[in-house]
């Protein structure tokens, strides 16, 4: 078995109906994995950016990139993995807030520079923005309090100015 790596691809596509389905279909049809996916428009009209995280073997990522590029609606495929880039992911975490735990939760929120965006009698909803490691860390700290539910976006990423 070859080692699998985590890859971050930033893909510019024509903003047309069906583009996402072409990409998703390519992955399912060829047995590639999608770890996370995030799509939104860019500053350029009719162009969207897809940030995709995938885990696979090094030789497979080459096929993935070439196959993506072969799709007529894909404009560029930028593999950020070995470049300098910033990456963010947004999550909303609803956590049990029993009176004896409230102070500790607030401390964790403070340390991680998160925000409380909703408060109830027995819960807090916390907004977390950061990279995957930060998300994993705060989730592991909040787990003992009792996480009620989590909603999370996929990663979004941009190359740094000198990291194109």
């Amino acid at each position, binding site marked *: 078995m070859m080692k699998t790596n985590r890859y971050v691809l930033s893909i510019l*596509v*024509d903003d047309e*109906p*069906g583009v996402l*389905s*072409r990409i998703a*279909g*390519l992955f399912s*049809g060829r047995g590639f994995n999608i770890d996370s996916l995030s799509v939104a428009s860019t500053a350029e009209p009719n162009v969207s950016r897809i940030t995709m995280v995938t885990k696979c073997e090094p*030789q497979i990522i*080459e*096929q993935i990139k*070439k*196959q993506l*590029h*072969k799709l*007529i*609606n*894909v*404009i560029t495929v930028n593999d950020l993995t070995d470049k300098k880039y910033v990456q963010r992911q947004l999550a909303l975490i609803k956590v049990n807030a029993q009176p004896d735990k409230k102070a500790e939760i607030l401390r964790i929120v403070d340390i991680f520079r998160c925000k409380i965006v909703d408060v109830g009698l027995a819960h807090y909803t916390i907004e977390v923005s950061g990279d995957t490691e930060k998300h994993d860390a705060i989730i592991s700290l909040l787990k003992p309090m009792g996480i009620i539910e989590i909603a999370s976006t996929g990663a979004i990423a941009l190359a740094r100015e000198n990291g194109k």
Partner: protein
Amino acid sequence: MKLNGAQILIKMIKSEGVDTIFGYPGGAVIDIYDALAKQNGLRHILVRHEQGAVHAADAYARANRSVGVALVTSGPGATNTVTGIASAHCDSIPLVVFTGQVPTGLIGNDAFQEVDIVGITRPCTKHNYLVKSVDKLAFIIKEAFYLARSGRPGPVLVDLPKDIVQTFVEFEEPGEISLKSYKPTYKPNKKQLNKVVDLIRKAERPVIFAGGGVILSQASEELTRMARMANIPVTASLMGLGAFPGSDPLWLGMLGMHGTYRANMSIGHCDLMIAAGVRFDDRVTGNIEKFAPGATIVQIDIDPTSIHKNIEVQIPIVGDCKATLAEIIRLMEEKDPKGIAEGKPEWLSRIREWGNAVPLKYEQSHDVIKPQYVIEKLYELTRGEAIITTEVGQNQMWAAQYYHFDQPNHFITSGGLGVMGFGLPAAIGAKAARPDKIVVDIAGDGSIQMNIQELMTAVESNIDVKIVILNNRYLGMVRQWQEFFYEKVYSSTNMENAPDFVKLAEAYGATGLRCTSPDQVSAVLTQGLNTKGTVVMDFTVDREESVYPMVPSGGSITEMLLV
């Protein structure tokens, strides 16, 4: 000038230089058929099943070296095209398939004869479109043809809602196509080419492996010239047959599962392989670990995804085969023409020994017709100049082995997808493109029944095709596998309950001939080829004849089952 969508469609198809399209009408395309009836210059051949339309368009494209066009209605008309589209996709054949669609206002409502054909064909087209505005129709059609024929060719589908083809609009010539996301690489990287020339000079045991890409890029001349300049023997995939003359002394025969002994052994022992326009299909490579183990591999392909997909190559070259081979020839001439041309006499004599040790052969019989013999005779009688289409299975492999193709675009077969029922509609398409040619479908008794209804198309349209049925009353290739690997349990492959093909031909208004003994083969073929109109020749052949050599699935291609 005000035109409706249907008229724009016909105008645009004509402007692409297409003179014949294949189709079947229906409610969603009735306006297009109305417009077709009121124009001249675009011939429509009415098939009897939409699958036939796509296979015919596929063969038209190959025989004509242009783009094939099929036109069908929505719903079942559209879904019936899927097998044909998938076959053309596997074989990289330029097609544009127009499907009718329910009016835009009904899309998504599960309307009568509505199907999401754009969704269904997404993985088996090069690209596809749902036209949402008549203003964009002309441009989309132009783009569809451009995509179909450029780069690595392939099928493109355009879905046409009924209201779009009915709407009148001021017609404007669409501008030039320029896609920021699609720029195929035609010109190869020069540095890589210099390496290739050096490798050719140093190689002791070189082989050229040609594929369908050579035929698609019309690079046969260049390939032949390069091989002869440097005395390099040539093999080909099924799709590459005809890329190099089958009568040339450097020709090794086909490679792979049913390749010749000398072709497979040459690949097993070569130290340099120049692969042009191939994708290293599993039917060619067998066990990848044991495929050309000692070779430096050069791979030329216009599609970067073909490179490093199945096998590791040392010199990848992304580019058009024709442009690349022409440039290699130029560099060879410039650098050291003599040093290269000296060739490798030891290597060539070793290959000759392999050829002599195990030639392509079968045991002739005086009592029962051998299928290989029928093809040998057909080759003789047509002087190797016919366009041959095939069905899929033993008939296809024997055609590939025993009809020696000297020219490209003369062997038309469903290579990648392997579609039974391809040959008859393909013969119709090829003959429509090349009326000057004898066109023969080499069929099996199983395959021919998969699109037999197209006999009516051929007869009605006065398309003169000849059908040679190698009738063993078995699904022969599956039977062969069952004999070799499943203890002769002939599960569901016995086809003794077959129609009388002679009467069937006559029922469709064609000529039917039967041949049951080896000494009549020549006479029946001669009569069939000389009879005007569509002719079905039914040859009762040896029931349990097998295709040899054979590489068991997943084995090394140098370990063949021989007769």
